[in-house]
């Protein structure tokens, strides 16, 4: 883990050296200024975070994945926990309101009477899945929050890295019975849960459930080609969810052809993505970001390459990345049990992402460097822990197109039994 942190610190230092530490004292009671792009971006980020880091997404990405792999066992299950934090998702002007009875000149340096402050997001999720034969049950809950960053950098890090994850455990466990939610415009706290049943066979996996945030939920995937699709049901309307993906999730030619000689080709992901984008509008329509993505993982066992093409708005190549990892990095319980590959290890990925000009969000557009560093350890079919650090990650920028040079980190722990 230490080499990953050292490498990432170097990357971050090179990227934002002049921004690392603000000089002097900032006002402790500063509030965001409404009517600015930064304030609108923060509100958008809070909404997006709440609708993205949902219990359904978490269940699909972690809890149910582990359970799906072990469905051939007579009975079993999985548990998982995730912590996701994004620093500097938006930057917004703030000021010290005299109405609070705080004199900015006494509490902070006068140049910070109006100050630029970043905003952070955090989401924690936990869940479990159980099955007996092909029939299963699952539950997952998520807690997402965001706010203008604390002016004390140490407390800022301690709050998101340690205090929030601890405070959040109780809401995660009691989410179906807990109505506490708030949205002040500049900060918010949202709780979500999903509960449902799954049906898993050699050919097909189907899940249906209820989510607090979106209503009905349906997911289907075949186990041969990894074709997949999902939708949510809002009340009486059936519609594609806010984030829609379809395509090949992870095609393994070697496994498909049962030919070990094809292992060097790696796995192919090819999918289409359609999600809300830009400012929410007043005319009843919704700007959408539509893009195609190609991922070739584990070429020769150690190289990942990826590219994305933005279809709308402003069609263009929008991402190009290359990554390197140790052999066995993406070994799963689906693989041959006699594989000699080690499981887990390190991934280092770099490249560039392109953002379209969106002056409504205060974004002038252009290419930005991107980086991803990830460490993982564990054993297929038993459990794993992974930690990743992201700079200008394509997925993050698709969700938050104003989050240039934002830094995210993600911790996932899961176990199967």
């Amino acid at each position: 883990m230490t080499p990953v942190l050292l490498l990432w610190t170097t990357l971050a230092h090179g990227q934002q050296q002049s921004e690392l530490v603000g000089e002097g004292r900032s006002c402790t009671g500063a509030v965001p200024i409404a009517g600015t792009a930064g304030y609108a971006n923060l509100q958008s980020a809070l909404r997006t975070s709440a609708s993205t880091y949902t219990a359904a997404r978490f269940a699909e990405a972690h809890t149910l994945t582990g359970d799906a792999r072990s469905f051939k066992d007579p009975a079993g299950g999985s548990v998982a926990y995730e912590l996701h934090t994004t620093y500097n998702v938006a930057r917004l002007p703030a000021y010290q309101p005299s109405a609070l009875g705080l004199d900015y000149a006494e509490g902070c340096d006068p140049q910070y009477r109006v100050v630029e402050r970043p905003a952070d997001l955090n989401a924690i999720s936990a869940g479990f899945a159980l099955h007996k034969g092909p029939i299963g049950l699952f539950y997952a809950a998520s807690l997402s929050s965001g706010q203008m960053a604390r002016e004390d950098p140490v407390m800022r890090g301690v709050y998101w890295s340690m205090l929030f994850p601890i405070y959040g455990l109780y809401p995660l466990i009691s989410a179906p019975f807990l109505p506490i939610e708030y949205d002040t415009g500049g900060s918010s706290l949202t709780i979500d849960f999903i509960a449902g049943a799954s049906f898993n066979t050699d050919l097909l996996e189907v899940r249906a459930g209820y989510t607090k945030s979106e209503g009905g939920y349906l997911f289907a995937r075949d186990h041969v080609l990894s074709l997949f699709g999902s939708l949510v049901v809002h009340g009486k309307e059936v519609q594609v969810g806010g984030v829609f993906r379809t395509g090949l999730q992870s095609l393994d030619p070697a496994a498909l052809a049962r030919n070990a000689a094809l292992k060097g080709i790696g796995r192919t992901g090819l999918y289409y993505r359609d999600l809300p984008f830009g400012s929410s509008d007043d005319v009843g329509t919704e700007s959408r970001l539509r893009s195609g993505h190609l991922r070739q993982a584990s070429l020769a066992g150690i190289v990942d390459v990826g590219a994305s093409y933005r279809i709308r708005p402003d069609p263009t190549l929008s991402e190009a990345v290359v990554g390197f990892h140790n052999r066995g990095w993406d070994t799963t319980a689906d693989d041959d049990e006699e594989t000699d590959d080690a499981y887990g290890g390190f991934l280092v990925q770099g490249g560039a992402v392109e953002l379209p000009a969106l002056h409504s969000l205060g974004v002038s557009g252009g290419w930005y460097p991107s980086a991803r560093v990830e460490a993982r350890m564990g054993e297929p079919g038993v459990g794993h822990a992974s930690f990743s650090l992201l700079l200008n990650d394509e997925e993050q920028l698709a969700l938050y197109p104003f989050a240039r040079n934002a830094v995210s980190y993600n911790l996932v722990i899961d176990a199967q039994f």
Partner: protein
Amino acid sequence: MIALLLLACTAFREVDPDSPCREAGYAIARRTEECTDDTELANARYEAFEAGYACIPMDVLDPEPGVAPEDLYACSFTIDRLPCEVVLELGDDLDGWLASADACAYVVEPA
């Protein structure tokens, strides 16, 4: 963990003196996009704003008497709340947009 805490250190910095001015342009683009669902038109109006107007820098340490620095954002605040009927009526008339708040005269002027 120490590295993670270091990454969180960008907790505040001085605001760009042109910030209230640029925010007025962003607000024009934002309301255009929100009321027309036309991202290209929104970008075009911001670029016309940039080309046709010059920013009057904000001086946080020595503000104009009677005008607090934070009050300069009343320009973008007012534009940000224009009803869509007004937005559609104003169209490409940027002088009209900037006439909607007295504060705009303190942050932006014709180039």
